[in-house]
């Protein structure tokens, strides 16, 4: 069976070499885990592998976790700090994706660079203040990266997420345990609230006005949460696709955002 035509396979010796190849040849692409690429790419001239760049690592610092771009999702979901960070929402989000087989080959780099609308991780990363580290572009927040009109032809080296001791909430609505989400919600409450809604079906984004509203309140109670959810429904655009209608997504958003906020203020 043929899925993707590959003219040449190149194992880059370092990030500079990979970056040069990527920018010299228009028909070149970087393969991270490769599972999604098999389904979405018809042909590649030069397929660049980063397998020799030693980007499979998780480094724990005082305030941050640094995760190499080629770290598998499975490695991440089993890391003790990731399992406990903000009620373990990143581990929870990752665990909800497909099965262990896919998570053993899918990488954090591929998940981020893909900017997948259906992603269950991007929302969790957004509320964990995720920052990205590229070879050329150096540092950029995940939020800003998701706003860029085009994905830069750059090599993602690592991501950083903030270590904080607050609460978190992650919920994904899907038809079966292996399905794409109809909607996913990620919340962290450290000193401040951060809220991300994903798979709307559009790509995850931060509910900034909603968070600002909550962060400006001295007391959070059910009435405030109700108001916050109203703001979110206004602020966050959801639409219809094969999996769910706009109207139903609005119900899901309202319901789970309310439940999530109630949960993190406990």
């Amino acid at each position: 069976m043929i899925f993707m035509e590959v003219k040449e396979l190149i194992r880059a010796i370092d990030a500079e070499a990979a970056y040069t190849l990527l920018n010299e040849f228009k028909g070149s692409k970087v393969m991270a885990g490769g599972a999604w690429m098999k389904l979405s790419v018809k042909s590649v001239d030069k397929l660049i592998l980063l397998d020799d760049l030693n980007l499979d690592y998780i480094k724990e610092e005082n305030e941050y976790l640094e995760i190499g771009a080629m770290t598998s999702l499975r490695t991440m979901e089993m890391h003790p700090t990731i399992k406990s960070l903000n009620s373990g929402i990143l581990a929870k989000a990752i665990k909800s994706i497909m099965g262990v087989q896919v998570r053993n080959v899918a990488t954090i780099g591929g998940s981020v660079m893909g900017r997948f609308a259906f992603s269950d991780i991007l929302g969790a990363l957004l509320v964990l203040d995720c920052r990205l580290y590229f070879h050329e572009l150096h540092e950029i927040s995940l939020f800003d990266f998701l706003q860029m009109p085009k994905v830069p032809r750059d090599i993602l080296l690592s991501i950083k997420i903030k270590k904080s001791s607050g609460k978190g909430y992650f919920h994904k609505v899907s038809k079966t345990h292996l399905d794409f989400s109809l909607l996913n919600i990620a919340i962290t409450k450290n000193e401040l609230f951060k809220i991300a809604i994903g798979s709307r079906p559009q790509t995850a984004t931060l509910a900034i006005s909603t968070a600002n509203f909550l962060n400006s309140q001295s007391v959070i109670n059910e009435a405030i949460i109700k108001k916050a959810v109203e703001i979110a429904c206004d602020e966050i655009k959801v639409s219809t696709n094969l999996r769910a209608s706009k109207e139903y997504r609005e119900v899901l958003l309202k319901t789970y955002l309310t439940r999530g906020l109630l949960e993190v203020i406990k």
Partner: protein
Amino acid sequence: MKINLRINGQSRQFLIEPNEYLLDVLRKNDYLSVRRGCDNTSCGVCTVLIDNKPVPSCSVLAARCENKEITTVEGIEKEVEKLAKYFGELGADQCGYCNPSMALTVYSLKLENKNANIEEVKEYLVGNLCRCTGYVAQHEAIMKYLGDES
């Protein structure tokens, strides 16, 4: 291109195309226990172990597997016998198409967490679909296998 693959402890050299997936290379070279089901990582039937971790061989380029330990059921025969015994006892055998891929995944679960409870078993195996059994007897058999210290 030529690559060296270590399969079930044996080093072998193969001539492959850069875009060939591990599943096809294995089946072409008589590792027929590895099967094709869906070609998009949804079913788990093509599972092999790479460095004792289950991966979807339909979506892993063979060229990336050099210097890694690839395991198919032929490489864990004693464990398979044990699991097959419990499958037989609990009536978990139906068409059997998914059974080798299940044995490999269950074995890697045992290496990682031999005290897994039934919920953890279900979570670990969720990527291994079965259309025949309704899953119940498989889970019972797997729990017995995990509990078998022999």
